[in-house]
């Protein structure tokens, strides 16, 4: 499916979010407010996005940008759903009920970014040992065991 078509379908579903649908580097991206993220993802799943490719986060300073990559076999398309989670209170509803695939992915984001997924069945650290302190992929992560690289390019 072409990306413009996708945009129309999404816009028909969410007229108010249409301006937040951007096309960049050949990928459709929709930015969704935090409180609507779960319902939006559920609607997109009903629309045909049957695979959750990836859940990840990007540290944007004040906020974490949560990035969901959806993939559809029937629509032959992929798109991003993004939302901002405040750093001060990083909580977001889990999508494990929609795609079980989110289970480990969300655990990973929790492990490395400290974003809490509410409603997750088993939210524990996954990659790091259970007694690890801090969330290393945050930009402000401090660890005296890290040796910084020399600063030249």
């Amino acid at each position, binding site marked *: 499916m072409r990306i413009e078509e996708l945009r129309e379908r999404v816009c028909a579903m969410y007229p108010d979010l249409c301006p937040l649908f951007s096309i960049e580097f050949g990928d459709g991206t929709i930015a969704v407010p935090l409180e609507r993220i779960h319902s939006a993802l559920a609607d997109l799943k009903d629309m045909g996005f049957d695979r959750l490719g990836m859940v990840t986060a990007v540290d944007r300073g004040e906020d974490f940008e949560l990035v969901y990559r959806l993939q559809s076999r029937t629509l032959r398309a992929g798109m991003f759903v993004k939302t901002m989670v405040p750093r001060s209170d990083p909580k977001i509803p889990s999508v494990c009920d929609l795609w079980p695939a989110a289970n480990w992915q969300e655990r990973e984001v929790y492990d490395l970014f400290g974003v809490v997924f509410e409603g997750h069945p088993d939210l524990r650290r996954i990659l790091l040992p259970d007694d690890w302190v801090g969330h290393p992929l945050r930009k402000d992560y401090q660890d005296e065991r890290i040796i910084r*690289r*020399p600063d*030249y*390019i």
Partner: protein
Amino acid sequence: MAVRDERPKTPETVSELPGEKQGLIAGAMSIVKGFSITVKAAATRPSTVKYPKERVTISPRWRGPLALRGVLGRDEIPLLRGPSYAYNELIDDLYKKDRLPPCVGNCPANVDARGQAYLIADNRVVEAYELVRDRNILPGVLGRICHHPCESACKRNFYDEPIAIRPLHRFAFEEYRKIRHERISPFPRTQGKSVCIVGSGPSGLAAAYDLLKLGYRVVMYERERKPGGALNTGVPAYRLPREVLYEEIDDIVGLGLELNTGVEVGKDVPLAKLMREHDAVLLAVGLQQSRLLPIPGTDAEGVVGALEFLWSANFKHEAGVRGKRVLVIGGGNVAVDVARCALRVGASEVKLACLESESEMPCHPWEIAEALDEGVTALCSLGPEEVLTKHNQVVGMRMRSCLSVFDETGRFAPKFGEETTDVAADVIVFAIGQAPKIDQLVAGTELLVSGRGQLVVDGTLFTTSVDGVFACGEIVTGPGSAIGSIATGHEAATSIHRYLQGLPLDGDRVARPVPVYPKHAPADTRGIESSRRRAVMPMADPSERATDFRQVELGLTRQEAMAEAMRCLRCESEVCVGCTFCARTCPDYAIAVERVDEAGARCLTRYDLDLTKCCFCGLCAEQCPTKALHHTGQYELSFWHRDLMVFDKGEMLRPPIGTRATGRDGISPPGCPVPRKEEA
């Protein structure tokens, strides 16, 4: 494609084997089949590698532990020096070995810019000048006017900014100038034969220099009162102060050249006489007349050729355009020169019209940029249609819009649109090319001239239709650059030398390689150290400089020049200069490089490779400009202690073949080969 049909077809589903049967018998059969396969396997030759018989050749791209071929301070870089008849071979040899520095390879005359930078950084400036003069006979001149193809091929483009090679020529000349009288003495005349050169342009001078060096007597004739050819008559003085040119030619005279100025061959002296008097004659007369376009109105008053315009502007500082509006037709370097000269001789308004679009303009981008700075207006994609006249006096020009200049195959075939514009002008200068004028010259000889008035010349050997008469320079190549002309001069000198020695002219002569070097997009210079930046050439202020013929470029100071020479990467020299790009590229930050930049005592003081971090990705060796850093054909090494794995400079310089640093005692495991790698 028989093989493709035999290829097994993918089944609908992989869950079932073809002809699969269940049950005990079938199961037993499958087990028996398994036995037959293992028996067959046991009967075949094991695929184990037998050392050292089998695995003696390894991939030439083998990524073994790194080593250095040479370092600054221990190893000298080779200077490209040689008599002109052997020089091409030298260059070609290096090129085939992939060891030709891009600056040298991209220069038409293969001037050793690398050696120049090496010597200047070593504070051997005069030596540097003399090295350069061997190939580029007028470094001081070319250091001002060259279009420096070397700099656009400079490997440094890939990292940050190219080396300022041309300003270094100029700097070297300025240093040399102070002591030049001490350095000049005539070449001994050993050959007893004489050569006559007609024309004292760059190509003629180059040939003269080579022949003098080879021990011939060289007599040169020049039509003008001062020597230099097009450099004298055509190049505007704001780019090239004449005293520089005369001084450098004076040096060549000092080397033994017999220069006769003010003598026009063909008019004052017949060419046939010269051919009798000398063993060989070289015609280096260049292009003497400007081309005009066959459009209506070109015979009107106010239409001038570029050469005539430049001549009068250069010598009289007056071209009859004071307060007038000048329109220059053409987009080449000459057109820009004309435009800039026109400003300097008092034109009130200078416009430049050319067929090409802005990005396609044939002139060098820095030239047009400087011209625009000074107030020239460029009108692009316009083709001349008709000169508008009033009472046989130019009032303007009708221009037609040009859609495209070249066709698909790249030939010159302009396509014009419908729109026309009229441009008002009082003087129109045509700078669309030059043509030779040799009728008078060749009169009375058997030299063949083509229908279009051009001399018939062999493009590679520079022979004409008459034995013993050679030609070089723009008369052969057509309008070109000064350094290109010099290159033909060297070639012609080689031909003359071979002719006079009775050797076959072509023989084993190597055609000059014209390699193609990658162009790089401008590198990101954010965040780089100031020592990595290119020295900025100080320029006169545009508003001031446009009013007279003072030099625009002011030259580098000694300090700047030394720093700039130190930036040179010594490409392909196989001597590490401590450029630190390996350390910067290493994803593991495993390399530490330090060097001392004290002139005369430059050396690499530290080259540490922490083999414990190296990931053998090869990025460092791949981008090493000098190819000093390379992968050895060794296996990864094993050690009894981790500290032994930090290789210092001495360890990095270990011989790459025959040793395995294993245990550091040279013991190679029994039954294992010493991997061999082809070494250049």
